[in-house]
């Protein structure tokens, strides 16, 4: 190749790289713009207590106002409640499912469970929601927190199961076999060998399930009652008469909380991964 050709391919290489980088940057800006906007609008004065598209001035008043709004606070508490129970349930059930997908003795059962997990993710939320609504109206079970939790858990279970499954696939089966050879019962192996290695995945899956449950709107909209109204449902309802700035304040606070939880999950995942490797190789 001549020097000139080198220069030409180099230039093309550079142009591709630059345009890809530009596209990536644009995507990140696009994705973050509304989040930044929500933060900005939570400090916006607005007009006559209503949020406006144009910025009218800076104020901190909406944060205490959001805290003092009882309906809003009640909806956040009930969101936390629902998210807590649904993530707890889905961690237990989802971990069992993730484990069974990889280690169940029967190949057919493994395939069936894997298929079921994917179906859980695939069925549109609105379909699950209306189906549950039907179930409860036929069986005449009145809607409360528990019924809402049952509506949200299927998806949360699938999320936990997939994370746990991914971790299970990286585990060395021979360690479990060795434990069995040395006289450990299956339950003991599960508790002392498998579970400690799964902890990071279970924790990460749990946090994801929590976030998803907290944020769930579609299922909650169908299964909520005046007594049990989660934050997303409250926000959705508040859109009818224009969102107030308190909503933005509440949501910005929740967003920061979510980011904190996710950061915690990332740290947990890393921490829990390292010491175990260290323990195995003394």
């Amino acid at each position: 190749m001549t020097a000139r050709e080198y220069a030409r391919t180099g230039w093309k290489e550079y142009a591709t790289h630059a345009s890809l980088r530009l596209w990536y940057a644009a995507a990140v800006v696009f994705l973050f713009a509304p989040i930044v906007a929500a933060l900005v609008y939570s400090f916006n004065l607005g007009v006559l207590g209503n949020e406006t598209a144009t910025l009218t001035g800076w104020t901190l008043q909406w944060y205490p106002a959001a805290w003092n709004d009882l309906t809003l606070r009640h909806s956040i508490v009930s969101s936390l409640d629902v998210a807590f129970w649904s993530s707890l349930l889905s961690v237990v059930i989802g971990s069992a499912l993730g484990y069974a997908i990889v280690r169940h003795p029967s190949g057919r059962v493994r395939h069936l469970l894997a298929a079921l997990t994917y179906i859980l993710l695939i069925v549109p939320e609105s379909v699950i929601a209306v189906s549950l609504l039907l179930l409860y109206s036929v069986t005449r079970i009145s809607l409360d927190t528990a019924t809402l939790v049952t509506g949200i858990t299927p998806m949360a279970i699938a999320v936990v199961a997939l994370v746990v499954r991914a971790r299970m696939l990286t585990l060395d089966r021979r360690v479990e076999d060795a434990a069995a050879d040395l006289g450990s019962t299956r339950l003991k192996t599960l508790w002392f060998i498998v579970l400690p290695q799964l902890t990071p995945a279970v924790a990460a899956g749990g946090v994801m399930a929590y976030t998803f449950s907290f944020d769930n709107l579609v299922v909650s909209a169908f299964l909520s009652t005046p007594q049990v109204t989660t934050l997303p449902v409250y926000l959705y309802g508040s859109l009818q008469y224009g969102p107030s700035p308190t909503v933005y304040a509440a949501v910005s606070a929740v967003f920061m909380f979510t980011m904190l939880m996710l950061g915690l999950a990332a740290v947990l995942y890393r921490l829990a991964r390292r010491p175990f490797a260290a323990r195995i190789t003394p």
Partner: protein
Amino acid sequence: MPALWLAVFFLAPLAFTVVFSFGRPTFGGVVPDFTLDNYAAALSGFYGATFLRTIAFAASASALCLGAALPVAYFVARHTRRHRALAIALIVVPYFSSFLIRLMSLHMLMSRDGAVQGMLNALHLHHGPLDVLDTRTAVFIGMVYGYLPIAVVPLFVVIDRIPRALIEASRDLGASRWQTFRFITLPMIRPGIATAILLTMVPMLGELVVPRLLGGDRGMLMGQAISAQYLQSQNYALGSAMAVLVLVAVAIIVAVLARITRGFAEVGR
């Protein structure tokens, strides 16, 4: 144990829906029967048009999403080294914040006198007030916005897995960058594309928040139509039939995608 839980709270309700879809509607209830009337109603006239529109809409929005996601995934997989984890995190993090809030903010940004209008005017790309809200374009933007992260991730995973040596070999043998992409990269990332389509198009079929928030009442989609049958008209039978139709559409998409990537499942095992 997990199977039991799912059977009670997932499969049983779905079964109810299927049964109801064949029933005869009474006000606020359904009489068990075996009739196809609900399907006839759901497939004809206004509802049929809504169903077709929803499918066309989900397909094109999903394609748009994929087109936007591919360069992003390609960039992160190929052109980043040290900051790779950060690069992918930046794409995924927004997905974990409240979807509804992000849409509300998007609504604010795109509204008349909003930030986007100001920006476009400043760049001389647009003059005067911006009336994009309550149009189909706004719903498109909202859909792409909402589902971009989950389209990027599977694409990133497959592009990342292609050995660099393969690309270099193709280039050494005289293929252009485009030829390499077309004949080496693209065939190898097929499963990722299928997953991305699945993860974006299927939820779009049932989506009811984006069209309601950004599209106004015009351009009603299937998700809204179903919820209206349940929560307003109380016609559970028709609503069920429409829900089952969405499920059938989902099943067809899954079957087609599974066929496209069939060769890969065998290699993967």
